[in-house]
């Protein structure tokens, strides 16, 4: 069981690296979806001893949301916007991947020092969660297409979700459900916003959203 968990966590790491290294938006969406499904499986594995109906139901729900519903919403937005590739990211892909590996190293060091009250289910869990969080943030700040930024937001939320699984397992069921609902509505609203952006500007490059500033030129 332990080895399986580790393998799944490595898969999560690989999806992050894939996201950092890929410029194709469709592939990024798929990677984020795969990550969501893997995390759903992980949620079931962790609670091995005390599986209950709500827990499994939630894990399935979260897997379906992140693996099917969110990608569907994002792909629809992508179709509307008609973009396939992230062109000219602020940080190149190769550098992003290597930065990602460095971030993973930092996350490992960091989590080795954190005094956890109870040991995490797997020693890899906290570092992978932190790494996922970093990757998401990195995607948000280093990519220009609105869809990629939303994907980054999802990845970041995945990281926080993993961290929650690792260290805060007492979080009540309803709260988790609420978080998932917020995430869903968030992606939905962002999808609509992307639709409007692509219609208004004929592109979804957020770095060109710069009309609003304090000093009028």
């Amino acid at each position: 069981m332990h080895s399986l968990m580790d393998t799944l966590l490595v898969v999560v790491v690989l999806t992050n690296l894939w996201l950092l290294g890929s410029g194709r938006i469709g592939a990024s969406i798929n990677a984020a979806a795969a990550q969501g499904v893997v995390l759903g499986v992980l949620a079931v594995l962790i609670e091995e001893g005390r599986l209950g109906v709500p827990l499994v139901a939630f894990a399935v729900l979260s897997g379906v949301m992140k693996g099917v519903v969110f990608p569907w919403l994002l792909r629809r937005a992508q179709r509307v916007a008609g973009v396939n590739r992230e062109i000219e990211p602020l940080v190149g892909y190769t550098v992003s991947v290597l930065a990602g590996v460095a971030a993973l190293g930092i996350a490992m060091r960091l989590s080795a020092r954190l005094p956890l009250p109870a040991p995490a289910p797997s020693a890899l869990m906290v570092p992978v969660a932190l790494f996922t969080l970093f990757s998401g943030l990195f995607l948000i700040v280093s990519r220009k297409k609105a869809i990629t930024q939303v994907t980054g937001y999802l990845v970041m939320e995945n990281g926080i979700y993993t961290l929650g699984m690792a260290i805060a397992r007492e979080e009540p069921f309803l709260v988790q459900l609420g978080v998932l609902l917020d995430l869903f509505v968030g992606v939905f609203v962002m999808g609509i916003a992307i639709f409007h952006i692509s219609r208004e500007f004929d592109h979804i490059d957020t770095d060109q959203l710069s009309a609003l500033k304090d000093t009028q030129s």
Partner: protein
Amino acid sequence: MSAALVIMPLAAGCAAFVARWRWLRQAILLAVTGAHAVLTACCWFTRREAAPGAWLALDAPGLLFLSITSLLALLAAVYSIGYLRRERESGHEDFEEGFVFANQPEAVFTGCLLVFLGTMSLVCVSRHFGVLWVAIEATTLASAPLIHFHRHHRSLEAAWKYLLICSVGIALALLGTYFLSVAVAGPDGAAPQLSVAVGAWAGKSAQGAWLRAAFICMLVGYGTKMGLAPMHTWLPDAHSEAPSLVSALLSGALLNCAFLALLRMSGVCGALGEGAFCGRLLAGFGLLSMGVAAVFIVAQRDFKRLLAYSSVEHMGILAFGAGIGLLAAGTGGAGGALLHAANHSTVKALLFLVAGNVIAAYKTKDIGSVRGMLRVQPASGVLWLAGIIAITGMPPFGVFVGKFMILKAAFDARLGWCAAVALGIMAVIFLCMTRAAAGMVFGDAPAGMARERELRATIVPPMALCALALVLGVCVPGALQQLIAAAVAALGGRP
């Protein structure tokens, strides 16, 4: 009761989405905001201690902020009737760049307004940090469509920035919530319920490092939503591009909701022995926000952005007051902050509503282009002048009282230099804002502008707010004083 406060607007919002007739939507909006206000008023008389394990319940700080929210929502609903009529009548030509745009369907606007009210009520009544997070994120999602009411590229940009910056920021607050549960977990790893009730935490212990990390995450997360510098970047854009009544709600009610979350977290940290740390951080961010706001106010030419930066300043003052309250209990900093929150909401909502009238008449947001409001829109002109005088902290308005209490608390806490810095910043802002307002209100009307007939629905709500600000300045009602004292106690401070 508290569940009804949340569910009623949410359900009504859904109904307004699908309601076909305008009169029906407006009836729903008015009836529900009215009923919400009445329910909130009832809560003043039936206050009792919340059950310890409850998820939704109203305590004193929640009631205070709920009352502000509810009042503003009602007035905004009244204002919206006039506002929407004006929007329908005027051509949809952008006055800055001259293109023609469409408006969001009114059904979406009304629906989102109601859902927004529901989610803000949820913030006020939630008793669990997880629920609180869910509610605050929900307010972001409900209000983002409102900012994009005028469907053009600037409002879209503002809405997108608001959506992304706040969502990412608030995600950090979720991280903070998890850290909190680690910090308070027992040796067996089991965490108690993350109640926001400070009393429930008295005598418990926590791991200091995790608790501080949790507070920092929440400060960044909810601070983003509250508009504390340097996380305030979404705020001026969103406030300047949103319809005026939405700006009023954002500034008067939404920012307060995030402040409430921060207050609750700092209260819990105080009970767990990290009060001084949180107090220093809050006061520091407060001063920084005031300073940043002053810098941008000095050279501001857009009066809605001016108001937005003024909000940043006042959020800074609130954080400063709350920080002083944590650093030196019993000096009245916390009470001052709560009173100031109420006053600021009242006056800032008044100003934003009047700003909507100014834009409707002058078709510009440029301070230099607005002249002679007293001749064109006498009522709005007077209200604008009163609002500006009030917001800069002049007596006899309530903002003065709140600011005075906070500064006095800072002096009592031997943080005189902080108070002096704050006072200096306030003086600069006072000069800039009154100069701008004087230029707008007095003087001759621009050529070709005659006196306008002002719609009653767009004048009565700001008038009511002005009266309220005046009352709060002359004498704070006993019930409010009691409520604030109870709120300070509930947040772990000494009144």
